[in-house]
């Protein structure tokens, strides 16, 4: 003897399972990240050229007394990958918004006068880092 399900219970479960499967397969084949939770599993799914460059973006700020500080997750409430993922549409005014978030999250810290979005490019050759790295400032926000 065992605990069984009714035919209706089975049909309902199978129907929902099939629906979720179709959504997941459609998201995998055609969707983008915003189809979550049915989007493609694309973390580290892209291919970096062994003779290309690895790009890494970071934020740095200049405080009111001139010190240059690296901006961390806890300062702005956002992860690096989050603002990096918005790069094509990110504007300098958004960096100003992040400076205001910092003032709210860290009221005792020195305020930021300048915020810069910097992209570091690490050169590769044959799939190995050559040691060469160049940095480019992509966006700058200066407090009014």
């Amino acid at each position, binding site marked *: 003897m065992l*605990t*069984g*399900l009714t035919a209706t219970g089975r049909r309902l479960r199978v129907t929902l399972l099939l629906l979720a499967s179709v959504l997941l397969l459609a998201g995998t084949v055609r969707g983008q990240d915003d189809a979550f939770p049915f989007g493609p599993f694309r973390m580290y799914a892209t*291919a970096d050229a062994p003779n290309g460059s690895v790009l890494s973006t970071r934020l740095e700020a200049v405080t009111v007394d001139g010190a240059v500080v690296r901006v961390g997750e806890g300062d702005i409430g956002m992860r690096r990958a989050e603002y990096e993922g918005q790069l094509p549409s990110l504007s300098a005014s958004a960096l100003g918004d992040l400076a205001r978030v910092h003032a709210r999250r860290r009221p005792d810290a020195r305020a930021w006068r300048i915020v810069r979005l910097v992209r570091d490019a690490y050169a590769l050759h044959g799939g190995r880092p050559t040691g060469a790295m160049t940095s480019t400032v992509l966006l700058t926000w200066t407090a009014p």
Partner: protein
Amino acid sequence: MTTTASTTGAATPTAARWLFAPLPVARVAWLRTLVYLFVPLDVLVTTPWVARHDTAPASLYRPLQLDRMLGLPAPTTVVVHVVEIALLAASLAAATGRLPRLLGSAVLVLYLEWMLIAFSWGKVDHDRFAFLVALAVLPTAGRATRRDLGTSEAAGFALRVTGLAVVATYLLSVVAKARFGGGVLHWLDSAVFVRAVLRRGTALGTPLLDHTWALHAGQYVLVALELASPLLLVLRGRALWLLVGGYVAFHLMTWASIGIVFLPHLVCLLALLPLERLSGGTRPLGWRQRAGGGAAGELAAVSGNGGVDAGGQPRQRRRQQQRTR
């Protein structure tokens, strides 16, 4: 010995027989406890960045399709913390095993909202799919206690669907590599792991940049593991433990080298293991009929569930038949 009418008959498709083949109720009870207790750990300890979105600027809010369908604006500080507290309370209550459908459904809705808060600022992680599926199916198993000696079709469905979600995460990751990586072969010989270590390398991971062959080999190992994942659904006993251990080891190596670990996903891997053994005195109960074959014998063949003694006799008296919706 009797069985439910719905499990009999040659017309029942093999896939449906596999999906609903009974598994121990105690296993689903243990998984439920572990999943619901993981939620506070997740919210408070392992992914505290989600709560930091309480101050993230609305100008950088990038709503997901679900946000847009539901018309959800950027969550305010109050909304983030109300959801956080409600989720913590609901998950702790659900971990007791009481009101499994009501509390389990509440955790599902609140956790999904928590994930919308997490992933609506431009980055989506992929370690949550199986966990969300587990949260969706665990309430369907109904009442279950960790010392229950019985098996049920509802438990079998919940556990197998969680396992399917784990496997789908791995298998469809290969499809994503084919789609976004210019083909799997192209991805295999790319420098993607070098990129990962350059960007996120830990004290243990960064030295691997002097041995990039190991990172390159790791890409092959990853795809092999992802392609092998359906074995998680068919292997049993020691072979299953070894395979699960292999996946856990890979995830731990990833964590050690770049600081990323799929913890919610790893919790769901537990659905594949005989958690009912944690109940101590209660032995795992199988659903294998000794004689006659028939529908029960077929179910035993596809259930992958042991729990019989050397002579094929059930170890414990089976639970009285019930019919649940």
